[in-house]
């Protein structure tokens, strides 16, 4: 531009006559004064100079230290000579906030004071006149530039690459050489190049040193100084050895430890010894290796020099990124050493970051970034999951290790007092940190809300300020800040109340302005509006802030109109529909909201939102996923509205139903828009469920949305039924594909997604799958609604429905408590009509117990309890039980829900149990037994309704009848695996026997022992019958899960009581009162299986030998799939073997026990019964002694049994008497040989009749 002007000017001047030029000059002088000439001159000179510089700066930059005025030609020539010489790298320029004052400022001291009259003048410089000399190689004496370029065939040369780019001050990135032989080191994007001397400080330099040694030492070396200044000091004084450069190339530590460059990338050991010192990687104490070890970094990150600290924060950020990549399974070269220690390192790193959080300047900024990297960036995907409503608390607990008492006030200060000191990006990072902290657990959320001015600062900065300043402000309001409020409000009711007090009106301003009239860009405005609606939805699900609907009536009406118009985005419409649904649910029972009557049904009727919704549906297609979701949401809102009408409108809402039905019926007809949406959603859901093996998160999310749609359409269908209708209606309100819905429910029931929460770490699951329950609860809600639907279907018989209920009820997750209780009541209503020996009165006996299984009460005593020592543990128990908001809010849930966030899957079992009784265990109908067992301190017994009057026997009978019937019916419909399992049945029966008597009452006879009751006995027999060895088809399922009973028992035994203790009491009780009750005896046996610990067998065989003879059970009666579990691996414990021996020689053990004892004794005598690798080595001495004992003490039958006993070690099935006593002839022959050899001829002779003759 300027050039063009000057060219024009010159042309004009050339075309002028001298007079004209003179004239012009005069005019200029007149206008600007006399000095103008020199001024212009100077300006022109400057311009010329700059032009000449730009002409060559493209090639040389500011790299070469050229003298100020140099002939351009000469420069070029010099540069050509130097072209191949690698340029010594410049030291990275760090910010030195607190570095010592530059020497320029100390200059005045050097100036003589007498010359004070001199004026201070500044040189006429521009930035290009300041020459930056590149930093020097290690020794200032080694003139780098003077060296000639290395010759091409020089093998020692390590090229750092050719210099390209500008002299940026960014640290060097080192790329690993592609192969070890290739000694090329590439330095990319950096400010460095090196020469061979610099890159091999020891190599060539030392060679030179040696060469010069006898002559003059190089100036500046220690030797030079010695010769020159200290000739008297002997050469090679060991005290001065530190001064000489180390001669051994790798004297330092063997360099197995990891070293990192300034980006936090690991430097491979092969490189770290070779990199030049000029890269800034050698500023640590030990060794001559390039790069910093982790310890160096942590040390330097606490440096008092801010610049160092800043750099190290950056290093740690880079390292954290790499670690998180590695944690996610990506391959990161050279970082193997930290594999498995990612979390540990991350904890140390975040501690370093937190410590620097409060620093000012760049240290603080980098610290914020580092903490962000550790807390948020580590697993960013999780945050999305967390926002769906699940705590992200995990086992390793990085966040738990953070001290929020320190962090939160710091962040609060940043947002309130020092906000201007931070760039917007850092503040956004801080917001995200707070968000992540808030998603950890409820305690963190409470701390964040309780922190003084933290939230108000955030809201002020991110929402209010940009909003009030309007669009001329460069930034628009940050929707993430509303997300933070949403996640906090979800955390608990009390937090939501606090937020409702402080921020409801602040957020309202985003609702009042529709995106079309907003001053912000429409996408931002839409997101803001949608998030605000979501915020009110969350508050509404606790019944809070519902008065907004009335106070902002006009705005809401406009919003409704807008959301239902074609210009609104689907996202916005969805958000509005959800809010409307919650508000309608709030209006159904005006007392459920806080404060009551904040929103009333009459207003909801008056607003007539639904007319617009119907119009919206007319316009909405059903092709895309989001449109289908919208259909679902509208149906849900309409269903809520109809449900409200049933309660609140005239004549049960008959008129409203009719009106709406007219529209709906048409839509749901064959090929109607609604029916096509339903079938499309079903299609996609079924196909997604079909290929279930690898579900990604987004897929699952889509499935959950589809499940919601189905759920809502079923709800709508149900809402059309008139109230007080029992059983199926005469005609369905509208058509739904009922068969396909049933198929869907059946598919869901047996689907593998339910196993995800318990799944071990399996690769087929995507990262974060542990948190998938947050989506799975949508399927559970669908199943709950399906059960209500199938009850109304004429095709579903009562038995079928019962089977469905008993199986599906196990799938219902926390949040569905109400639904479960409703199903249960319905089950109890149906059960007596089907004919088992349950009458309606006795059915109601179980009510309180099941209710407790679903929603247990907190123990009141513990709430009041004030013992000093136990106080702490009591407080934990006494916390009011959480109640999760269901996905579809009901008046009850609105009044009582305490949280909207699922418990973290990593939480302990105890906390999970405290969180919710759901999902139920298959033995839920037997829950009453637990309370009978602990009737002394059972909460249920203290809160029984007045009319409840039943004896223990009644409760037991009813429970078992129920369990038995449900199992039968489940088996009849091929749903057997949702029935009570073997172990659960065994434990329940054990509980019956453990119901002790005679403690309080003075009755001691067996008459009122529960297990003596004939009915109870028969029921128990029936319950256990299928698990007996004879009825189980052998080899069908090797159930063989070890410790199964112990695991199951953990649920009803108080914590700290092992199953062993329970079993001890059980055996003791058998010994004391059983009168050899056969069923009692039968239940003693399961823990004697070799799957269980030796302690059970020790207890049984060694401590209670007297009970052996009272137990008369045949092998086929034993509760076992495969009797081999009692035989193998062979018993090893000498004490138990001794007891087994005495059990058989004294004829104490009978039938099954005799067989087991014979087996173990024989297997310890005969080597051919064992497998060395599985049963341990054979103890010959013990075998000899055992045989002698058997022969000396045992009666005839025992001896015969032992000698002829045979089991096939590798077989599948156990041989029982008598087939186990026919060992083959060759086996017996070998036994005989062994006897003759090891035991003695005498014994061989005594046994001769049993053994084959030679």
């Amino acid at each position: 531009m300027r050039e063009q002007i000057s060219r024009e000017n010159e042309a004009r001047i050339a075309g002028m006559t001298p007079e004209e030029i003179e004239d012009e000059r005069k005019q200029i002088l007149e206008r600007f004064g006399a000095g103008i000439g020199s001024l212009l001159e100077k300006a022109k000179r400057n311009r010329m100079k700059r032009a000449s510089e730009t002409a060559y700066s493209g090639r040389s930059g500011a790299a070469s230290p050229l003298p100020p005025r140099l002939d351009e030609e000469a420069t070029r020539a010099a540069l050509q000579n130097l072209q191949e010489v690698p340029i010594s790298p410049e030291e990275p320029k760090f910010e030195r906030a607190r570095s010592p004052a530059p020497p320029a400022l100390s200059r005045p001291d050097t100036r003589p004071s007498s010359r004070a009259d001199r004026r201070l003048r500044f040189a006429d410089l521009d930035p290009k006149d300041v020459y930056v000399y590149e930093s020097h190689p290690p020794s200032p004496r080694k003139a780098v530039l003077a060296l000639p370029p290395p010759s091409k065939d020089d093998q020692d040369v390590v090229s750092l690459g050719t210099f390209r780019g500008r002299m940026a001050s960014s640290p060097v990135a080192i790329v690993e050489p592609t192969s070890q032989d290739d000694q090329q080191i590439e330095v990319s994007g950096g400010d460095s190049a090196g020469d061979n001397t610099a890159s091999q400080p020891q190599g060539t330099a030392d060679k030179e040193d040696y060469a010069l040694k006898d002559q003059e030492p190089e100036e500046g070396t220690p030797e030079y100084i010695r010769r020159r200044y200290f000739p008297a000091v002997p050469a090679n004084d060991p005290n001065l050895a530190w001064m000489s450069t180390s001669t051994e190339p790798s004297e330092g530590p063997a360099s197995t430890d990891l070293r990192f460059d300034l980006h936090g990338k690991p430097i491979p050991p092969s490189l770290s010894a070779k990199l030049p010192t000029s890269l800034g990687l050698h500023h640590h104490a030990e060794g001559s290796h390039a790069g910093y070890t982790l310890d160096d970094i942590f040390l330097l990150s606490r440096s008092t020099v801010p610049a160092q600290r800043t750099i190290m924060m950056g290093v740690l950020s880079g390292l954290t990124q790499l670690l998180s990549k590695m944690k996610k399974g990506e391959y990161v070269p050279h970082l193997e050493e930290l594999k498995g220690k990612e979390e540990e390192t991350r904890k140390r790193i975040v501690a370093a970051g937190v410590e620097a959080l409060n620093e000012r300047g760049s240290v603080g900024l980098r610290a914020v970034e580092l903490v962000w990297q550790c807390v948020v960036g580590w697993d960013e995907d999780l945050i999305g999951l967390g926002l769906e409503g699940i705590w992200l608390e995990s086992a390793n607990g990085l966040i738990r290790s953070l001290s929020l008492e320190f962090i939160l006030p710091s962040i609060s200060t940043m947002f309130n007092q020092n906000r201007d000191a931070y760039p917007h990006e850092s503040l956004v990072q801080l917001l995200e940190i707070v968000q992540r902290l808030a998603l950890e657990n409820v305690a963190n959320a409470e701390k964040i809300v309780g922190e003084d001015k933290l939230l108000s600062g955030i809201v002020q900065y991110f929402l209010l300020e940009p909003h009030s300043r309007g669009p001329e402000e460069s930034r628009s309001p940050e929707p993430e800040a509303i997300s933070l409020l949403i996640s906090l409000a979800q955390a608990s009711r009390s937090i939501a109340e606090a937020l409702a007090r402080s921020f409801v009106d602040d957020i309202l301003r985003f609702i009042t302005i529709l995106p079309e009239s907003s001053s912000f860009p429409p996408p931002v405005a839409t997101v803001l509006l949608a998030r605000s609606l979501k915020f009110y939805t969350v508050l509404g699900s606790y019944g809070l802030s519902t008065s907004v609907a009335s106070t902002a009536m006009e705005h809401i009406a406009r919003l409704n109109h807008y959301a239902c118009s074609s210009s609104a985005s689907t996202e916005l419409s969805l958000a509005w529909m959800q809010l409307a649904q919650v508000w309608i649910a709030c209006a159904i029972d005006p007392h459920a909201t806080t404060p009551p009557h904040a929103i009333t049904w009459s207003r909801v009727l008056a607003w007539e939102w639904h007319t617009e919704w119907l119009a919206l549906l007319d316009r909405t297609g059903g092709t895309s996923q989001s449109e289908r979701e919208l259909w679902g949401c509208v149906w849900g809102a309409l269903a809520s509205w109809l449900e409200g009408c049933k309660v609140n409108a005239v004549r049960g809402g008959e008129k409203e139903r009719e009106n709406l039905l007219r529209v709906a019926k048409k839509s749901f007809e064959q090929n109607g828009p609604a029916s096509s949406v339903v079938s499309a959603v079903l299609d996609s859901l079924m196909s997604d469920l079909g290929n279930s093996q690898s579900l990604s998160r987004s897929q699952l999310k889509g499935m959950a949305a589809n499940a919601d749609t189905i759920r809502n359409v079923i709800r709508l269908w149900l809402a059309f039924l008139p109230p007080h209708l029992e059983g199926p209606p005469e005609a369905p309100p509208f058509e739904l594909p009922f068969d396909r819905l049933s198929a869907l429910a059946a598919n869901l029931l047996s689907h593998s997604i339910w196993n995800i929460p318990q799944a071990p770490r399996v690769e087929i699951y995507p990262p974060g799958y542990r948190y998938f329950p947050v989506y799975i609860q949508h399927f559970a809600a669908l199943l709950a609604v399906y059960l209500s639907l199938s009850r109304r279907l004429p095709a579903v018989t009562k038995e079928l429905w019962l089977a469905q209920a008993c199986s599906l009820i196990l799938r219902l997750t926390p949040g569905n408590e109400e639904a479960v209780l409703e199903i249960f009541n319905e089950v109890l209503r149906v059960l007596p009509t089907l004919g088992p020996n349950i009458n309606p009165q006795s059915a109601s006996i179980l009510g309180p117990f099941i209710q407790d299984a679903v929603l247990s009460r907190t123990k009141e005593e513990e709430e009041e309890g004030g013992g000093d020592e136990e106080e702490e543990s009591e407080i934990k128990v006494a916390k009011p039980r959480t109640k999760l908001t269901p996905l579809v809010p009901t008046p009850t849930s609105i009044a009582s829900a305490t949280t909207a966030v699922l418990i973290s899957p990593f939480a302990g079992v105890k906390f999970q149990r405290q969180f919710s009784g759901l999902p139920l265990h298959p033995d839920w109908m037997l829950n009453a037994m637990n309370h009978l067992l602990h009737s002394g301190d059972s909460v249920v017994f203290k809160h029984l309704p007045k009319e409840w009057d039943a004896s223990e026997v009644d409760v037991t009978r009813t429970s078992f009848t129920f369990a038995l019937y449900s199992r039968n019916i489940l088996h009849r419909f091929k749903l057997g695996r949702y029935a009570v399992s073997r172990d659960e049945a065994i434990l329940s029966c054990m509980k019956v026997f453990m119901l002790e008597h005679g403690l309080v009452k003075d009755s001691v006879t067996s008459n009122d022992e529960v297990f003596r009751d004939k009915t109870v006995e028969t029921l128990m027999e029936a319950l256990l019958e299928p698990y007996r060895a004879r009825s189980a088809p052998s080899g069908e399922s090797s159930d063989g899960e070890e410790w199964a009973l112990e695991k199951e028992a953990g649920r009803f035994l108080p914590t700290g009581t092992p199953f062993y203790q329970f079993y001890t009491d059980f055996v003791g009780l058998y010994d004391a009162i059983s009168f050899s009750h056969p069923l009692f005896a039968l239940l003693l046996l399961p823990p004697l299986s070799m799957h269980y610990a030796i302690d059970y067998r020790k207890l049984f065989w060694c401590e209670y030998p007297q009970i052996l003879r009272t137990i008369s059970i045949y092998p086929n009666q034993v509760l076992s799939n495969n009797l081999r579990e009692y035989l193998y691996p062979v018993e090893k414990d000498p004490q138990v073997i001794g007891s087994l021996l005495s059990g058989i020689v004294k004829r104490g053990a009978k039938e099954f026990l005799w067989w087991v004892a014979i087996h173990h004794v024989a297997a310890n005598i005969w080597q051919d019964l064992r497998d060395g690798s599985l049963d341990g080595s054979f103890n010959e001495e013990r075998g000899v002694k055992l045989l002698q004992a058997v022969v000396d003490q045992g009666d005839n039958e025992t001896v015969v049994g032992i000698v002829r006993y045979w089991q096939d070690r590798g077989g599948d099935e156990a041989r029982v008497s008598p087939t186990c006593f026919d060992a083959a002839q060759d086996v017996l022959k070998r036994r005989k040989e062994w006897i003759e050899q090891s035991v003695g001829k005498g014994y061989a002779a005594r046994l001769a009749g049993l053994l084959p003759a030679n």
Partner: protein
Amino acid sequence: MNAPPRYELFVLEDGEKPVEVMEDTKIPNAATIKIVKQDHTLGNMLRAQLLATPHVLFAGYKVPHPLHPYFQIKIQTDGTITPQDALEQAASKLIGTISDLEAKFRREFTFKGNETDGTGAADDPYGTGTAWSGTRDYMDF
């Protein structure tokens, strides 16, 4: 503080019967016998003795509560004798065994005493051999 008096553990209250037999109505030849003011010492011995009796099918005892000084013993026989008879037999056998044991013990102890008296006096480092007679007096008592 509020511990029950010790004597309650072994002194019968007024009108209290030491043994109470409850026939079992549901199980043949079975009875539950409550024995008051006794504890595991007797209960365990009786149970062991009963188990050694050939006609007894089942014998078990329990002390329902450690602070209540009684135990219940449950006996079932094969029908040739009643549970009461079995218990009586067991008790008399037990008395026999114990008196036998006592007699043996006494005899051995007398031998021991004679040996001590005869040879041990000189060995006694304190020369207070007469003190042992006091002990023997106690045993005699």
